[in-house]
């Protein structure tokens, strides 16, 4: 079955440390790939997206993600986290032919220690 997997439900990281959130997808062809963030009481905000071309994508708030076709992965990274990065992060895919219907991973909740 086609799916999006975020293996880590919770991650705790110290402020200033680096962060990497994992995302794997299972689709026949490369879908469009997205990372969204949800802060408490807020909607889902798009961090970045990958459609084609350069496999390293820069997003807002200092985040980047790398698409690796061989691993069917689209991991999100940030070199130095800030306390305001504490939130839930969702990886999502659009199967291109599915008409802009997003399929989400289960989310990873990030806690930032002072």
């Amino acid at each position, binding site marked *: 079955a086609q799916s999006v997997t975020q293996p880590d439900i919770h991650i705790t990281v110290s402020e200033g440390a680096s962060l990497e959130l994992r995302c794997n997808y299972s689709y026949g062809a490369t879908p469009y790939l997205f990372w969204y963030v949800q802060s408490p009481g807020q*909607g*889902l905000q*798009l961090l970045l*997206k990958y459609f084609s071309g350069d496999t390293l994508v820069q997003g807002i708030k200092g985040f980047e993600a790398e698409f690796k076709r061989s691993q069917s992965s689209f991991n999100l990274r940030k070199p130095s986290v800030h306390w305001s990065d504490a939130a839930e992060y969702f990886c999502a895919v*659009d*199967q291109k032919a*599915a008409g802009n219907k*997003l399929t*989400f*991973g289960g989310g990873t909740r990030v806690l930032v220690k002072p």
Partner: protein
Amino acid sequence: EPEVTQTPSHQVTQMGQEVILRCVPISNHLYFYWYRQILGQKVEFLVSFYNNEISEKSEIFDDQFSVERPDGSNFTLKIRSTKLEDSAMYFCASSEARQGTDTQYFGPGTRLTVL
């Protein structure tokens, strides 16, 4: 920056009652969506809507659900006779176009609790 808004933020209802969840999409957007997230589960697509009709719907979106754009600004999701399992966070989203490359902008959600 334009944003999608949703009302109410929290709705509590009795099983069997009808509820209407409201959304105001971004003003120049033409495509509208509803997603839901049951507590502890993934965000799931429910329906997409364009030009006053449903473009696509998931198997979740059965006859108990309906969507409407009653005027030029609102987009609503109606659940006719709520069940306990309808308790979830419901997210509205909108996009300018329906290409997979087009960003969907999400609202903050309405938490529906069915008692």
